[in-house]
């Protein structure tokens, strides 16, 4: 399943907290697209994913929006 988390205009660490809260409801293998505007998410979300065993598939930046694609781990 694909999910989207809109974390625009939230400052770090709120986007990470959103992801952390939502991910509990998702299954391993699901993908999540997180949309954010705080440049810090490019570092914090991958770091959070690394310590929790989730995989960052891609990071795209277009103008002021950052899209981070994550695959939910076990």
């Amino acid at each position: 399943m694909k999910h989207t988390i809109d974390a625009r205009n939230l400052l770090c660490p709120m986007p990470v907290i959103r992801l952390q809260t939502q991910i509990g409801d998702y299954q391993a293998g699901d993908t999540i697209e997180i949309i954010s505007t705080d440049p810090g998410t490019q570092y914090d979300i991958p770091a959070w994913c690394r310590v929790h065993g989730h995989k960052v598939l891609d990071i795209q930046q277009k103008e002021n929006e950052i899209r981070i694609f994550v695959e939910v781990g076990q």
Partner: protein
Amino acid sequence: MQRKAVALISGGLDSMLAVKAILEQGIHVEGLNFFTGFCVEGHTQAIRNQNKSKPKRNNALWVAEQLGIKLHIIDVVQEYKNIVLNPKHGYGANMNPCLDCKIFMVQKADAWRKANDFDFIITGEVIGQRPKSQRKQTMPVISQESGAQDRLLRPLSAQLLPPTLPEREGWVMRDKLFDFSGRSRKPQMSLAEKFNIDEYAQPAGGCCFLTDKNYTEKLKDLWSNGGKRDYELDDIMLLKVGRHLRPSDSYKLIISRDEGESNYLRGYRKQFISIEPKSHPGPLSLIDGEASAQDIHLAASIVARYSQGRDATDVTLAVHSKDGAQFDLTVQPMTANNIPQEWLL
């Protein structure tokens, strides 16, 4: 049976060492980091353009990754209000309610511990490190008032404190813990060297903005002009961004200092009247409060002063109302001398 400890992780060296010492004893450790809204971590670097060369990392997450432990970041913004507004043990040098804050965090950690079936709590506290919250007398206060009692272990000062449950039960060996005390950082530095930790964040003053004098002044201004001692997350976040000037009791101006801040403030255009220079490059600014047409005119001439048109005869600015309507205003920029010092917060 492998015992489990939950650690308070601030992102500084002390909590990093405390966790490392416990991991070395074969304990499973996971970290908690509380987001109060006042944390220095992360976002100020994220908003501002400066230090572009430095990665904008969250130190708590970075520490967790170095230690190979999980880190849970917990949003405590709403509950924390009561700590800031009514601290039972009072404030430190500024608006920092450090002792109540520590009790609160350990209490939250203890609730997390019970819910997740962990055995004890560790913190990086060192006796005598901080004048108010980390004294020998305050250590038992934190253990008792948080409810954690003897399940709260401070590995760095453990040998100077009564044995806790994990020590008495033999889950951890007391003689492998430490007897650090006082403000010297030398014991921590040499332990870091022993653990091969060569990179760590240097905490500058404290872990949150409440220890910052200028921030505290802005917070007091918010309370004296907002009518009541209260805040929302947006209020306290905005205090971290831009220059704040108060030309009148009824409104203040928030003027961005660089492009990063302008982008951040742009996100608030539906909540505030905003002003942005058009004829010259310049900062996006918000009007926080009630402003008359005359106030907006004055605000525009202040914003013009901070634009690249500061020496021009006049500057044209776009004024956006909350509903998206827009009109242009041409004003003479104020001179630096005409901006009274007391307006600057």
